[in-house]
């Protein structure tokens, strides 16, 4: 694990790490990856991958409309509201 990799992962996760944090994370993540590498040594050929800790199939629900939140309540915690919508700082996708 390099400090650059840590900075990239932090950027993707929108984490603002200070230089000392980057250093600590580099060591911690390196240790975790080293531990995973130990597990890699186990021969699991022919073993079904386990994707979930709970041995359950996803329960499904019927396609029925249930009441939604009252709009005022849905928007109550928003820092800014406009025209019944959550208002966020301007994002622009396309060059115009």
């Amino acid at each position: 694990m390099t400090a650059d990799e840590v900075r990239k992962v932090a950027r993707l996760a929108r984490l603002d790490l200070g230089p000392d944090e980057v250093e600590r994370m580099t060591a911690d993540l390196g240790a975790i990856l080293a531990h995973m590498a130990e597990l890699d040594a186990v021969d699991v050929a022919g073993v079904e991958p386990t994707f979930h800790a709970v041995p359950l199939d996803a329960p499904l629900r019927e396609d029925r409309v249930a009441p939604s939140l009252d709009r005022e309540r849905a928007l109550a915690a928003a820092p800014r509201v406009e025209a019944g919508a959550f208002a966020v700082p301007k994002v622009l996708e396309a060059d115009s």
Partner: protein
Amino acid sequence: MVSSYEAVIGLEVHAQLHTKSKLFCGCATAYGAPPNAHVCPVCLGLPGALPVPNAEAIALAVRAGLALGCDVATSSRFARKNYFYPDLAKGYQISQFELPLNARGALEVELPSGTKRIGITRIHVEEDAAKNLHGVGAGTDTLVDFNRAGTPLIEIVSEPDLRSAEEAEAYLRKLRDILMFTGVNDGNLEEGSFRCDANVSIRPAGDETLGTRTEIKNVNSFRFVRMAIEHEIARQQAVVEAGGEVVQETRTWSESHHKTRSMRTKEDAHDYRYFPDPDLPPLVVAQARIDAIGAALPELPDAKRTRWRAELGLTEYDAQVLSAHPAVARYFDEVASALCAQAGGAARDEVGKRAANFVQAEILGHVEQAGLDARFPVPAAALAELLRLVERDVINGKIAKRVLSEMIESGEGAEAIVEREGLAQVTDAGAIEAAVRAAIDAHPAQVAQYRAGKTAVLGFFVGQVMKATRGAANPKQVNALLRELLGEP
């Protein structure tokens, strides 16, 4: 300098699954509600809220997979696709990555050069994102409406098997057709329930390696998809011929400028760091359930048209027109099967063709389409009753049109109207003969013309007889009798 280039195109289609509620919560999927009227803790991504998959959405996704010849996985996985953008509250979209529900399908597309098989890599289930509204508020803020967030989608990823904009358009039209006929998707491009992204690259003709591709996002009509791809192929050729290199990027189609433009995207935009969603255990669909969905798969449009041509003698054109919308196709099927139940062989062809003509000429203009449904001026069974009167020579085609307007107006049945208004046609040979003789006696000049060889005058006499009988005479009998009597020396 390369003499000619070949385009390589792959399409990603997002199609909304036709459900009442969202993929992971009970909020309505209905289009056109006020902003944020259909939201709840799950689709707003509030902490602690847990997703529960919609059984109907999964069934529709399986149906799409089977209709497109995919292998359907009995066990698939939901995964988190992580990115930050204000159309996602959770910071990730629930999608499928390593183990999609459907894989390895194909679609056969009819092209001027023949039939071409377009591979389908995968069809996975995912939730839609929220809608961002730019420049509508009083300030400069972007407004976020979560009504669409969590709407169930399938993403249909094609192999890069398409070689031109025309092929891409043909593939999309066929795909939409199949999804509509199977009731998976309502086919509404304008409301965004069927959306297309196109991956386009070029290479010297005959090369095996793929060139650098660009992705054209969210084009919302078939015509614009074709134009956007044509433009993008030309643009890439111009770049390469000028000695440049195509840059891998996302481009957007500008309807007003009729060209594609680069979208400003951050360098990490495609680093989604997928991982299995711990909130959702594996999605298991029993093989018996998959088989049952397959057995109940509605007739696909190609099969329907082939059957109509073979069993009802329809032309390819008529079959196309009548299968343009699944509700119209079902309507015609109902009318035709009610009429043809007794008819067989050649007679059946005639009955089928006449029903097809009548539906096209008199019904289609009155049909109001709304998504997968359509409203018809009269029910199929009522129309079959009317056309049966024509087949039995009780009324002729012209009177049938009059009866139909009456049916639309009053909602009454055809037989009742014919009875009440005395519209049953005159098949009494004596009465018809009297009318025919009267017409002949009244127009000696035309008789002379006819006998001098100008047989087109026959139409004039038919008109006279029909007028005299107020349209109620059986035209076949009138024609036969006129020929017989005019032919007399």
